[in-house]
Structure formats: C-alpha cells, structure tokens
C-alpha cells in the first residue's frame, strides 16, 4: 500500500468527519453535542500530556494550572461588558480588562499563548528535577495557580467564579482545535525534535552524549504542551460557560492522566480512544448515581458512585493492563487494511 493511497484515505476520512460535524451541529440534541465537545477537549489535553509523558518521559501533574490559565484568559476576553459588570459586583475588574471584548479566535490564541508562557516559566525550575519530584513540583505550581485565582478578586473574581461566558465552542471549533493539536504534535514527534524527545525518554545520559540538549528539548515539549492545554482550557470555558477555581483542582490533572493511561501512553490514537471512552463512561455510568429498579428490586443509587467505579476501572487498567488500549501503537491504514486482507484472500480463492 503506497503512501499516496493512505494520504487519500486520510483526506477522505477528514472530509467525512467535517461533513459529520456539520450535520451533527444542526441535528444532534444538545446533550450529545456536549459529550462530543467534551471528548474533543479531552483529546487536546490527553495529546498534550502524551507529548510530555509519552514522548519525552517527564511526568507532569500540572495540567490543571495551564488549563486554568487558558480558560480564565479566554473567558475574560470573550465575556460581554455587561456580563462583566454583573459578575464583578464585589470587587470591580481592573481597568484594561473591564473594557475589552474581543472575538473568540483571538481570545483563544491569547489564552493559549499565556498558558505557553506560564509553561516556560514553570518548566524552567520544574524540569531541573526528575521523576516523581517533578510530578510533585508541577502539581504544586498548578495548585499555586489555583490559589492565586482564588485570591486575585479583581481579575478572576475569586471563588465566585465567572458566569455567563458566551458558548462559542461548537463541534467545529472543538474538533478543529483537536485535529490541529494532533497535527502539530504528530509533526513534532516525527521531526528531529521528536526523535530528541524520545531519546531523552529512553536514556537521558545517552541522549546528552549524542549532543541532544536535554533541558532545551524538555522545555520545548513542556511549553508546547502547556500552550495547547491552554487552548483546550479556553474551549472548555466557552463550553461550560461557568468557571470557578474549584474546577481546576489537581483532580482535573488526574483526569488527564487517567485518560492517557486508559488509551495507552505514547499513542495519539490511544489518546483519542481514551478520551472517547472516559467521557462516554462518565455519562453511561450516570444511572448509578440514581436509584435503579430491576423488576421489584430497587437498588439505591448514591451520588458519586460512578466516580468510584471509574477509579476502580482506572486502577484495574494500571495494575493488570498497563499498556492501555493501544500501548504505543498508532492507527494506520496499512494496519486496518491488513485486518481485511484475509477476507479478500478468501474471496479471491473462492472466486
């Protein structure tokens, strides 16, 4: 199978996806659209985490912080002025922000850029450390960002949060951004930078001996991941339309880790599958939060039961199926067609 064929197949499936999203935006009910949007946003987060952990081998628990920066920036820039006045009734919003209202795309870009800058600033100290120390320090920075957003009343409105953020995020925006993120991360992974990332993951000392600048490459992966995590944060804010500091606790970072572990560390295909499964499970398990009736037996549901089940699934995966769904394998047309090969062969023989 030639490269050309697989490119054509990719193009066709992208167009099909686009057509489906256009159709879905108009025809599916809001609940399903919201789930699809959430899957796309989780894909963005998972792919960025994969860039840091799956490709470069650095375990970061700081995603919630970057997501928060992206979400707050985009939300503050897209909030209508009247809505801002309503939100900030305790402490007024500081001057330049109180008069700014710009379209969605530039707000998203600004949010992502700010998150990327935060990624550089946090990456410089954190990446000096290794393994679990780095995990802890990034977790710490994310929590510091949350504490700051809780206390900076005149910018973030503190624990009151921001309400009435316009719901600009639709399926085309979210899946478009997800596709763009996947494209960039994929390009990066296949470039010389990507090979340097993987060399660092496998053996830092050997990579350094080969002339790979460890710190520069780690920082690059970290900053790019932060940038796209911020992009996802912006989409998230304009999807759920209400944010407050408690949305961005370490639990959000854990969620990203869960998604990536489910799908398989080091595989973008796995990230997409992991996001789809996680978000769908989250919705499918919803009945467990309410009482259920089987015939004459009523099982009392308890709010939060689905979270217990999700964490048990997560633990089982990490204990017994550490590779996740995809391991580090990627989807390819060649692989898909090889599955159909036996069918063709049989047809030819019978024919």
């Amino acid at each position, binding site marked *: 199978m030639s490269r050309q064929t697989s490119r054509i197949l990719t193009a066709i499936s992208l167009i099909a996806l686009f057509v489906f999203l256009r159709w879905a935006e108009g025809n599916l009910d809001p609940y399903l659209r919201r789930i699809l949007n959430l899957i796309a946003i989780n894909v963005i987060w998972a792919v960025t985490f994969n860039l840091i*952990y799956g490709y470069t081998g650095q*375990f970061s628990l700081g995603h919630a912080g970057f997501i928060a920066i992206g979400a707050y920036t985009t939300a503050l820039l897209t909030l209508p002025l009247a809505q801002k006045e309503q939100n900030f009734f305790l402490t007024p919003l500081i001057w330049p922000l109180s008069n700014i209202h710009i379209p969605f795309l530039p707000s998203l870009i600004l949010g992502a850029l700010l998150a990327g800058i935060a990624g550089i600033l946090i990456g410089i*100290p954190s990446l*000096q*450390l*290794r*393994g*679990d*120390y780095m*995990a*802890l*320090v990034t*977790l*710490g*920075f994310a*929590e*510091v960002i949350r*504490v*700051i957003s*809780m*206390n900076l009343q005149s910018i973030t409105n503190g624990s009151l949060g921001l309400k009435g953020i316009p719901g600009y995020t639709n399926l085309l925006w979210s899946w478009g951004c997800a596709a763009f993120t996947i494209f960039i991360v994929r390009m990066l992974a296949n470039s010389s930078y990507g090979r340097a990332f993987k060399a660092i993951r496998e053996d830092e000392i050997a990579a350094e001996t080969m002339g790979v600048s460890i710190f520069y490459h780690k920082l690059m992966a970290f900053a790019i991941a932060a940038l796209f995590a911020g992009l996802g944060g912006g989409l998230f804010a304009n999807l759920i339309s209400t944010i407050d500091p408690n949305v961005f606790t*370490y*639990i959000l970072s*854990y969620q990203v*880790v*869960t998604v990536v*572990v489910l799908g398989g560390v080091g595989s973008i295909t796995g990230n997409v599958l992991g996001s789809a499964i996680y978000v769908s499970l989250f919705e499918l398990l919803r009945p467990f939060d309410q009482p259920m009736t089987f015939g004459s037996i009523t099982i009392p549901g*308890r*709010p*939060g*039961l689905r*979270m*217990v089940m*999700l*964490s*048990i699934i*997560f*633990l089982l995966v*990490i*204990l017994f199926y*550490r590779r996740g769904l995809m391991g580090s394998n990627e989807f390819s047309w060649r692989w898909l067609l090889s599955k159909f090969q036996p069918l063709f062969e049989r047809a030819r023989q019978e024919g």
Partner: protein
Amino acid sequence: MSLDMLLQHLANGISLGGLYALIAVGYTMVYGILRLINFAHGDIFMISAYMAFYGVALFALPWYASFLLTIPLAAILGMAVERVAYRPLRDAPRISALISAIGVSLLFQNFAVVVFGGRPKAFPRPALFALQWNIGRVRVLSLTFFIILISVAILAGVFYLVYRTKTGRAMRAVSWDFGIAGLMGININRTVSLTFAIGSALAAAGSIMWGMKFPQLLPLMGVVPGLKCFIAAVVGGIGSIPGAMLGGFLLGVGEIMIVAFFPELAGYKYAFAYLALILVLLWKPTGLLGKVAEEKA
C-alpha cells in the same frame, strides 16, 4: 506583637508541626523503602478520622476505645493498599506505581464521598482535651499540650524502633539496597508491609488529633495535609526520619507564624508550603538532613 502572643502562636505552631511530623514520617519511610510518593497516605489519614468518628458515633464506643481501635485498623488498611496496588508494580517503572497511587487516592476519596457523604461531620472532642489552661499569661487549650506530648512520644517510639531494634535495622537495610537486603535473608515483603503498617498507624494517630483540633470531617480533608506533609518530608530530606520530623515542625511553626505576622497573606497560606518545597528542591534537592544518594535503577 507581645511576648505572650508570640508564645501562644509558638504553642499552636508546635502542635500543628507535631501532627505534620507524624504524617511526614509515614511518607518518608515509604519513600525511603520503595522510592514511591504514596499519594494514598493523605486518604488513609482521612479514612482513619472517619473510623474514629464512627466508632464513637455509630458503635457508641467510649472515645479512648474508638481512638485506640482506629490505629490498628489503619495499619491493616495501609498494608492492604500496599499488597493490592503497589506490590504487583514493584518491578514496573517507578512512574507506574505513582500512577497506581493516584488511582488509590482517587478511589478512597470517591469511596468516602459515597459512603460517608459530602456533608461535614463533627469530630468528638472529649472533655479532657477541651480544658483551658493558663500558663503564665498564655492561655492554651489542653489539647495543644496533649498533641505536643503525644506526638513527641510517638516520634520517640518510632526513632527507637527504627534505630535500636532488629526490625528497624531490617527496614534501614531494605531502604539502603533492596536487592542486597533480600540476599542477606531479610524478608523484604514483610519489611515493606511493616513499613506501610507503621506509616499508616502514624497517620491514624495524627488524624485523630487533627480531628480534635479541627473538628470537621470531609472526604477531601486528607488532601491538603497529605501534600503539605509530603512537602515537609522533602524539605527535611526525603528518606530521613529525623528530617521528616524537623520538616514537619518547621512547616507547622512557619505556617502559623506567617499568618500571625502577615495576616493579609492568609489567603495564600496554602501556597507557602509549595513555595518552600520549590525553593528547597532547587537550592538543596536532598533537603535539610538528606544524604546525597545515587538514584536507584
């Protein structure tokens, strides 16, 4: 600030520090042996507090019986966590065990939300610990005094166990070199289990006193003390038991003093522990009392 006020804050700080030290020792012992940040430690702390609460509230035990019963139960819980979630991953990359620890922590928190409910519960405070004592012109709650006394006594016991007994020597040997300790005939699995049991028992003792000091039980109450105490352990030098004690006391006193001297920064109190962590790790990664150790392969 007057001297009396200063002494008052100091007493508060030392008692908080004693609690931090108890929990931090559990972290540092586990890290010393398995090189694992036991993210579930803070949640064992939380569950112990609930066990002590239900012992009194549901089973109508006298408070001392309930408190004393909680400690072995917590030790069993810690051993079970190690057996189920960490032992199968002992030969896996270190990050896998860390992810597993995150999973256990999530499970405990969600379990607590479902079983104990999200509404805060009021922890009992026996009359013995609610007395007001005047020492000079400083007014101290008897609880503050007892916390300092009990935590110092327990820490002394841990010190004795680790540095003066055969079991303690086995623990130190395993933390020094896993493989060689096994070759020398030390039962590694038993030693690791014992470490988890002791760490969890310390967390339980800490959580009971924490519950009396801050009598509000919530399913997520273990997270912040858990992280802070890990920070205390790192500040003191992870793997070093005296270091964890020192780190705990420093963090407790420092936290109280910062809020006492700069009340306007109270909202950022939580961020200070992290700043301390980041500064210590960047300036002296081995912590205050830690030794420079080769990373275990």
